[in-house]
């Protein structure tokens, strides 16, 4: 399965997607949940050092990339994963307040909180 197929369809048209070798690009697993106030994105990026993690929001596209680095020594008996680049893009709506976006990274799990702009929150209208 190539990374192109597993990347968000909306973002596949972006040119930068093709600059990475799909063989070594991992479309990591994510959970995305939306509440009235915010969107929360949780992604599994095991083996990434915080320095190697890059999160960008540009022109309505959220890009998350990170490097999985491994120290290699000795002779391999079993090898089920290798150094790789995690990469995934998501198209986000304009209703996200990008200024207030916060991120935390703990034991390979990235939690990204994307609060909705005030105007985009659902509002209950009272009838008097």
């Amino acid at each position: 399965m190539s990374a192109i197929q597993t990347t968000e369809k909306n973002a596949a048209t972006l040119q930068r997607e093709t600059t990475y070798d799909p063989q070594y690009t991992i479309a990591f697993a994510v959970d995305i949940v939306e509440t009235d106030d915010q969107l929360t994105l949780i992604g599994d990026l095991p083996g990434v050092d915080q320095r190697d993690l890059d999160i960008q929001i540009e022109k309505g596209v959220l890009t998350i990339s990170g490097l999985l680095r491994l120290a290699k020594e000795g002779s391999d008996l079993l090898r089920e994963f290798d150094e790789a680049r995690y990469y995934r893009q998501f198209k986000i709506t304009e209703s996200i307040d990008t200024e207030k976006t916060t991120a935390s990274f703990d034991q390979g799990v990235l939690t990204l909180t994307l609060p909705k702009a005030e105007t985009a929150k659902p509002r209950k209208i009272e009838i008097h």
Partner: protein
Amino acid sequence: MAHLNLFQELDLLRREVDQAFRGLGRDNRLPSSLLTSFTPRDYPRLNVSEQVDHFEVTALLPGLKAEDIELNALGNTLTLAGERKVGEISNGTWHRQERGYGAFRRTLELPSDIAAEKITASYKNGLLHIHLPKAEELKARKIAIEG
């Protein structure tokens, strides 16, 4: 109950076929199916390397607490067990749910006995590193010849 057994048999067959073909071809890394909730392969993914006096095991285990990982060594086998718990968020609309949860257990057989009491492990950035020294009696010893 016959249906359940049938599925179980098919699952076992698929695992065996998976196991048989592992390592064939150009390489056996399958990065894009990494850690999804549908991962049929053994979890967690492991890298094992050997050096003169020890083995190194690295496991991809994102989002656990060090105290929730259980390691057991006996003879030449190492067992890794633990559970990844479901996160707190439950209300709201789910747009994606790809991350897997639940208990896991994987047993690994090493080519030689390991010194269970000298095993050390560390857990950082979702990677578990285990250092397994080989049993003393298996290490090559230089024997002085009296003459």
